[in-house]
């Protein structure tokens, strides 16, 4: 019994009535006390949950921003969605935190490296402690998987904050390490299943924005997390054909699996469809992060008609086909 288990033991033992069978030995009592019945992630799916009415979306003056550095929203009791504050990084990526009976999956680590500037590690530890307190678990017994959706700095910058965390595995920052982390041998077609302990996460390759990107499907909430290859904003498509193939894979998946929400990593668009320019730190009328399957299908239908590089608005997202370096949406407002 390690120190954290020992400290947590009495409280847990008082809270959970023990059955006679489990009291056959002291050790048995201890393990029964710290490991109550596992959470059932398989029945009553999709688990209901909710997104906030409005996320923290920056402020007109960054140095006067009083929002927390990381906004933590519990989608449901076993799923948290984290978002970096716009005044800490303009990228303000969203990062889901999925809890299972054996391990926890953190997808994406934001765009600030140093813990003294932006303490992601502390917030994640707090979320895990919170969940364990609610579910009578020992935080030390849960393994944390620190992964990221794709190989871009605004999605893995804080990964080093987890380097010294016990019982933690984190993804390496090369394509081979990323693919190897999930045990894939046939990227991007192969779909693997990650078992968080009764909660399956389906993972497959989704290149197009960059070469090394994954899509994640949580079988419990049925949220399809599409990273930066499809999100409410400017989907910078660096490689058209791989992106189109990835879209096809997403559509095929939606044809065969129930999907409650499609969710990307950023929001760069207002509720009225107005584009928030790259780098802006205040999005007062921000659109929600979640999208519907129909919106994904509409984007794919439009993508089928696209043959030229350029910027195409699907009604939900901007498809920026190979335009990153040369074209943007914004205009000089003072032109006369």
């Amino acid at each position, binding site marked *: 019994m390690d120190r954290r288990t020992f400290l947590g033991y009495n409280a847990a033992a008082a809270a959970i009535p023990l059955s006679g069978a489990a009291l056959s030995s002291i050790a048995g009592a201890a393990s029964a006390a710290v490991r109550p019945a596992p959470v059932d992630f398989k029945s009553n799916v999709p688990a209901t949950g909710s997104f906030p009415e409005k996320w923290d979306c920056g402020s007109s003056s960054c140095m006067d921003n009083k929002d927390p550095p990381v906004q933590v929203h519990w989608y449901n009791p076993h799923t948290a969605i984290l978002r970096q504050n716009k005044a800490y990084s303009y990228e303000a990526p969203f990062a889901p935190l999925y809890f299972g009976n054996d391990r926890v999956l953190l997808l994406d680590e934001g765009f600030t490296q140093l813990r003294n500037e932006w303490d992601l590690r502390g917030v994640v530890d707090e979320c895990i402690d919170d969940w364990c307190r609610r579910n009578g678990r020992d935080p030390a017994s849960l393994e944390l998987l620190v992964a990221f959706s794709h190989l871009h700095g605004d999605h893995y910058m804080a990964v080093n904050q987890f380097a010294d965390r016990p019982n933690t595995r984190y993804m390496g920052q090369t394509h081979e390490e990323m693919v190897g982390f999930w045990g894939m041998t046939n990227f991007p077609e192969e779909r693997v299943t990650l078992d968080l302990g009764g909660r399956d996460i389906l993972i497959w390759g989704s290149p197009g924005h960059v070469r090394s990107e994954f899509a994640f499907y949580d079988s419990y909430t049925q949220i399809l997390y599409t990273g930066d290859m499809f999100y409410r904003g400017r989907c910078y498509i660096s490689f058209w054909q791989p992106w189109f193939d990835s879209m096809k894979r997403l559509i095929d998946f939606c044809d065969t699996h129930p999907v409650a929400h499609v969710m990307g990593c950023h929001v760069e668009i207002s509720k009225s469809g107005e584009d928030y320019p790259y780098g802006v730190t205040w999005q007062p009328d921000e659109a929600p992060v979640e999208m519907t399957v129909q919106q994904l299908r509409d984007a794919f239908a439009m993508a089928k008609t696209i043959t030229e590089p350029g910027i195409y608005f699907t009604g939900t997202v901007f498809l920026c086909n190979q335009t990153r370096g040369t074209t943007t949406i914004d205009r000089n407002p003072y*032109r006369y």
Partner: protein
Amino acid sequence: MAQSSTATSAPPPSASARTYPNGNPELSYNPPGIRNTDSAIPLHPKGPRLHNYASDGPAPGDLAFRWIFGSNVAATNRDPRVQVVQYNEDTFVLRENVCVHWEAPFTYLLFGNKGVLLIDTGATSDMKHYPLRPMVDAIITRWCQARGRSKLPLTVALTSGEDIAQNQGLVQFAGRPDTTLVPAPLEVMKRFYGLGTSWPGGTGKIDLGDRVIEVIPTPGTHKDGVSFYDPYCDFLFTGDLLFPGKINISNDGDFVTSLERLKAYVAGHSVKWILGGHIDMMFVPGKYYRRFVNYKPYERVLEMIPGLIDEALTYAREVKGKDMMLIRPDFVLFNGVSPDQRTPVWPAGVPNITPPFHF
């Protein structure tokens, strides 16, 4: 003990009895220009102390500090919200904190014997976030105390009334006593400067009392753009018409004409520096910060030499009539393209240096 030593020592020298109240000009550390400043102001002036704004060449002064450049995490920035640099005793340069607003505009405060002029007002209207008015009030109060005045009329003028990076602070001065706000609508503004019929030709004047600031119409980035010339420091304040950064040309014909006008003006006047409204460039040639950046540790200096007008004019003619951007070592021209436009074209003969990226 102390009393006895005071009694035996000589009385302190009287300032007025000295031969040179402002310092002996023969001494090497008192160069001629220094004599024109009020470096020896009486502690308790009896009446208004007038200053002689006539000087040979540019009045001495110094932008001795580097600009505060924001921080990686803007939310935790604790720098002053308004950075004040005193160029000389009658000239102040104010800058908005980069973490309050990424444009970090410069604002200039010029004193004369009968008035004070504030050029531009910053990008933030909220006085709690950007206390421009309290800062300007404090500077004026201290200046008035030193020069023996109870009040001094303030004029607030803008290099462009429609530029939201420079006109937002104007509301802070609404209702301020002894204050004239130059009206923003173009027609009214022209009449205010006496340019109603000659615009965009001719020049207007703002008389601060022995320091007459000239107003030169310079539309091009804004249709109501003006530049200001200070004959005391020999500065040309060009707002966002010409500054070390990303110049968004709004009408290329007007832009070229305005630069021609400035070139002719500079030929007839002594200009030490051109001071613009912002800095976007880095200290390596041709590299610049994109929009919305709250951390600019590699900023170029603010001041530009007047010779850059010729260069700007040459390349403004080149981009005229074309939708393109064009990189030069000290500025970048954007004509008819998005402010986020990028280009793979690098100017010939300019070293292509990549500054280190911070993390």
